[in-house]
């Protein structure tokens, strides 16, 4: 158990190195090998995560299974897990094998594609488990790069442009995070994040250009983190990168950028501003909630105006991450628990919706609404799963989204009733956009000849859909699987925030 976290983090990277070193060619057997190795590696990672889940002590609110090694160049390699990071680790590792399963029909540059997914997983896990700010920043800020690189390599000029634009969106945020963390480390005298969490940073009001900043240095540091977090959560007004990059990525890449990356960002919100800078977060929270509500409503509106199914999902689901932000910055036990659940459930439903789109894209070559219509008449299974994932995204009873939303709204009401009203209103807008998506694809008479010959989901596709459905329902029926181990850590975080 000594190196459990390192094993967990680096299994995907090891598989990526094996793929990069030993796999040659891009023929059918090579592609199959790459996919199987990808599934095996991500599946093994999930298995190790299950072991971690089993040995984790839910009563302990501190860091556990800490690994600490002196690293070359004066760095300290330090990993650890607590109740705040464990749910994200579980959600991420459970999602990744499904993502590769979803991409089984990919035939273009399969090796690069699998490598980028595996490297992403290592970077994301590194960000979730790192306790040293140097490694944290390295992992956290470069997590999206492998996928953006893959976009650039696969999709021609437009995709390269989109990927580069995404990098420009993320770069200032990354620099600000690095600067903020460096400043914090300098003040405390260590790069250990556990120590930073225990330190009380100054809250006395400071003046910037003659304007008083309430919350002092804490508020400034939170603002330093904000840009990176908002960008990765794909929230307005820093969501513009997603439209191009997510669209250019293959479906699995879209899922990772729109579901897994926000998952890492949501962890960033809990670990950086919430756990380290509670007073600063309290000052920023009302603005963050307003931003989250505006982002969610704006995302749904933009989605509603789209003529392409994929673009609709990118805008609408990107904005939905705003609900997670409301729960997190509200900083109540229920709000944070709800946000954890909603993040995990959202990752699965986003995967489901993009999977359905991938199936349609594989069959028709595009995802424009005017290509489709009336699919429900012939494609019963696809119609059912599309509707299920739409409804699960909206949080019907029995899904993780339902519990997540009710916890966020009921819990946050005590501190920000207006944000709750705004959040529910945003949910109404999201419902309109997603029903428009479902209607334009599935409902109505099947008139187009080209659609009449489409085949319904095959056995493998149905299996993946059933797995996703089962996972979403499992979260809805047994939410404590995810929130139980985190209860003590969340309680101590809330106490810190309240105190």
């Amino acid at each position, binding site marked *: 158990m000594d190196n459990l976290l390192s094993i967990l983090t680096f299994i995907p990277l090891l598989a990526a190195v094996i793929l990069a070193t030993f796999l040659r060619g891009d023929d059918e057997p090579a592609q199959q090998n790459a996919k199987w190795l990808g599934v095996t590696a991500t599946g093994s990672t999930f298995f190790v995560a299950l072991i971690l889940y089993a040995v984790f002590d839910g009563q302990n609110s501190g860091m556990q299974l800490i690994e600490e090694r002196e690293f070359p160049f004066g760095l300290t390699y330090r990993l650890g897990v607590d109740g705040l990071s464990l749910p994200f680790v579980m959600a991420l590792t459970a999602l990744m094998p499904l993502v590769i399963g979803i991409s089984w029909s990919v035939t273009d540059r399969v090796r690069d594609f699998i490598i980028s997914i595996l490297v992403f997983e290592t970077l994301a896990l590194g960000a979730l488990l790192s306790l040293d700010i140097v490694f944290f920043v390295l992992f956290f800020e470069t997590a999206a790069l492998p996928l953006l690189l893959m976009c650039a390599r696969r999709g021609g000029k437009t995709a390269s442009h989109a990927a580069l*634009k995404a990098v420009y969106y993320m770069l200032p945020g990354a620099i600000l995070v690095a600067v903020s963390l460096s400043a914090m480390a300098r003040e405390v005298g260590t790069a250990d994040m556990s120590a930073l969490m225990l330190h009380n940073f100054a809250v006395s009001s400071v003046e910037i250009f003659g304007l008083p900043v309430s919350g002092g240095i804490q508020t400034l540091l939170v603002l330093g983190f904000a840009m990176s977090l908002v960008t990765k959560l794909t929230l307005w007004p820093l969501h513009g990168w997603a439209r191009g990059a997510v669209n250019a990525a293959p479906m699995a890449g879209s899922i990772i950028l729109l579901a897994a990356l926000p998952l890492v960002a949501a962890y960033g919100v809990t670990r950086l501003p919430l756990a380290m800078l509670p007073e600063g977060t309290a000052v920023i929270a009302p603005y963050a909630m307003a931003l989250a509500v505006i982002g969610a409503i704006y995302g749904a509106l933009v989605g509603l105006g789209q003529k392409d199914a994929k673009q609709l999902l990118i805008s609408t689901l990107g904005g939905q991450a705003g609900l997670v932000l409301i729960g997190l910055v509200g900083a109540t036990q*229920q709000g944070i628990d709800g946000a954890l659940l909603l993040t995990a459930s959202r990752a699965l439903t986003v995967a489901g919706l993009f999977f359905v789109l991938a199936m349609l894209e594989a069959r028709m070559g595009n995802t424009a609404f005017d290509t489709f219509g009336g699919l429900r008449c012939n494609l019963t299974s696809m119609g059912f799963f599309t509707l299920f994932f739409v409804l699960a995204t909206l949080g019907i009873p029995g899904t993780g989204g*339902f519990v997540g939303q009710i916890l966020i709204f009921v819990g946050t009401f005590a501190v920000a009733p207006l944000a709750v009203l705004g959040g529910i209103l945003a949910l*109404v807008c999201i419902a309109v956009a997603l029903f428009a998506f479902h209607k334009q694809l599935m409902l109505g008479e099947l008139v187009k000849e080209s659609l009449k010959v489409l085949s319904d989901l095959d056995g493998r596709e149905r299996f993946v859909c059933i797995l996703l459905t089962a996972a979403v329902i499992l979260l809805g029926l047994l939410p404590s699987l995810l929130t139980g181990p985190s209860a003590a850590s969340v309680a101590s975080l809330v106490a810190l925030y309240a105190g």
Partner: protein
Amino acid sequence: MVTTMLLAPLVGALLAGFGARAIGDLAAQWCATGLLLCAAALAWILLSSGAGSIDPNVLVLSRWIESGTFVADVALRVDLFSLAMAALVTSFGAIVSLYSFGRTAPKGMFKKNESYRPRLMAHESLLVFGLLLLVLAETLPLMFAGWVASGLAAYALVGFHYRRLSSGWAAMRVFVYQRVGDLGLLSAFGAFYLWADTAEISVLLGSLENISDAEPLLLLGMSVPFAEFAAFALLFAASTVLAQVGLHVWLVKGTEAPAPSLALLHTVYAAGGLYILVRFGAVIDAAPKVQTILIVWGAATALFGATVGFVQSDARRLISMVCLAEMGLIMLALGAGLRIAALMHLALYGLSAVLLFHVVGWLGQAMRHDYDMRHHGGLKTPMRGTFWLAILAALAFTGLGTSFGYAGQPAGFGVFLSEAYILAELEALWRGLPWLLLFALFLVSLALWRMVFMSFTGMARGDRDSHEVAVDPPRWLWMQMFSLALLALVSGLLLVGPLLGTGKLAMSPLPGLACISGLFVAWVFYNLRPAWPGALAGSMAGGQEFLREGWFLEKGITQGITGPTVRAAQWASTRVEGNGLDRLLSALAARSMPGLERATARLQSRPAWRVVTALLVVALVILIWVLWAG
């Protein structure tokens, strides 16, 4: 027994929805209906055995959500009120499901041999399950789960004809309206949790008596009394499912649902609104302003439903509107604190609404799914059974009786007793309001008798072929409906004692007069002087259009909310997106593209790729060495 009652409709829904292919169509239909009948029987057994007392019996099944002090079990609350509601909901559900056996779909709606009846019954069972969950829930999240599940089932019922795009739009409206209702219900639950620090309804109800002492809420700098906020939030939620005027559009569009299931939307689904207002009645009692809103909104809805209903040509829409008027009356009664009377009225009007929707369903089916009464007429001869059933249903719906019946006790058919009681009580509270309601009841009566006369008497109109093939439904079906009609007629007499008490009741005789007046005017207009309605409508064309178009509210909502939303969506997606910061970064990316392409080309060249791989390997080796060497 309670758990079985709750789960039976869910099992039925799953079997009919997913198992029809395996067990066959007919077996799936019987499973759904049989399990609903079973649930109804259990509900009545529990109710009559005294299991439901005023003091609740809480049945904890398992732990569900645990987050700090917010602990929500899967727990059921069994008391008199929840069991009465359960009996009502399951009975209506079972009746509608039973009569869905005879349902045929409009031509072209389904493929040949496509199984659709089990799916319809699955949706109906799901709606009943949702409502059962709502009324039996002991915790707030479970209640909310029932609320959303019922909305989901309503969505499925309205969108049943998935090949028709209009059904898809209508279904979407149903779901979205309910999500708008979430705004109220979740806010109320948030306020309750803030007040009582519990998710358990039993504990919460105990503390609600003092809710008027709660600190006011600060919203947008305004101090809002806590109880008024919570009560208004509940009212808003209830108003969406009770389709109060302004939030009624989903009900108008809901006529896309198959006719028998429409009865469920107007009774079972709406019962959810009544339930939450009664269950948390203590909050309403502590909020006098909200009580006034309830009364005014309810009266406005009653008037709206009645005035709009009596000018409709589509039989489904007509019934839908007169049901809306009754829902308004229920809301108004709740505002006046007449909760038992409201419940009784829901039961009484619900029974006759089920009958009426079946009559309309059979009419439509006989006329090849043409529900326009202007194309009916003269159907009394080929559809004699349906005609008599329509008369009984209309009589039960409009109510007929006397306030000075046998031994000084009031007596009456159909909804008379509940209406008479509500009007008499209101007279003491709000002078003048009963006269407004009486006018609404007169119009409701006129509308229903108009439908009866236009469809069944006079000359045959419209498509001759349809008239030639129009027949009654199978005898076994309408014979059973007649039993139900008799029950609807006498149920008021059966319920008045247990619900309103055996003492001398103050009753207004006026609803009976309204019914007779409506009948008389309809008889004159549509039998004696059939030219009069046209002439009258011609002389008041503007007024008729105003009423037919539902006071232009639907148009107003379309132009005031839907239109601007769509325009805002187009504006945001075409004008805002891609501008500002995005355009700047896009330009920057475009300028850097040549450099990137060169770098990518270098990276893609074999030597460079090897270097990257080698670096990865070295990094991994260093890492492994550090980890193990410690």
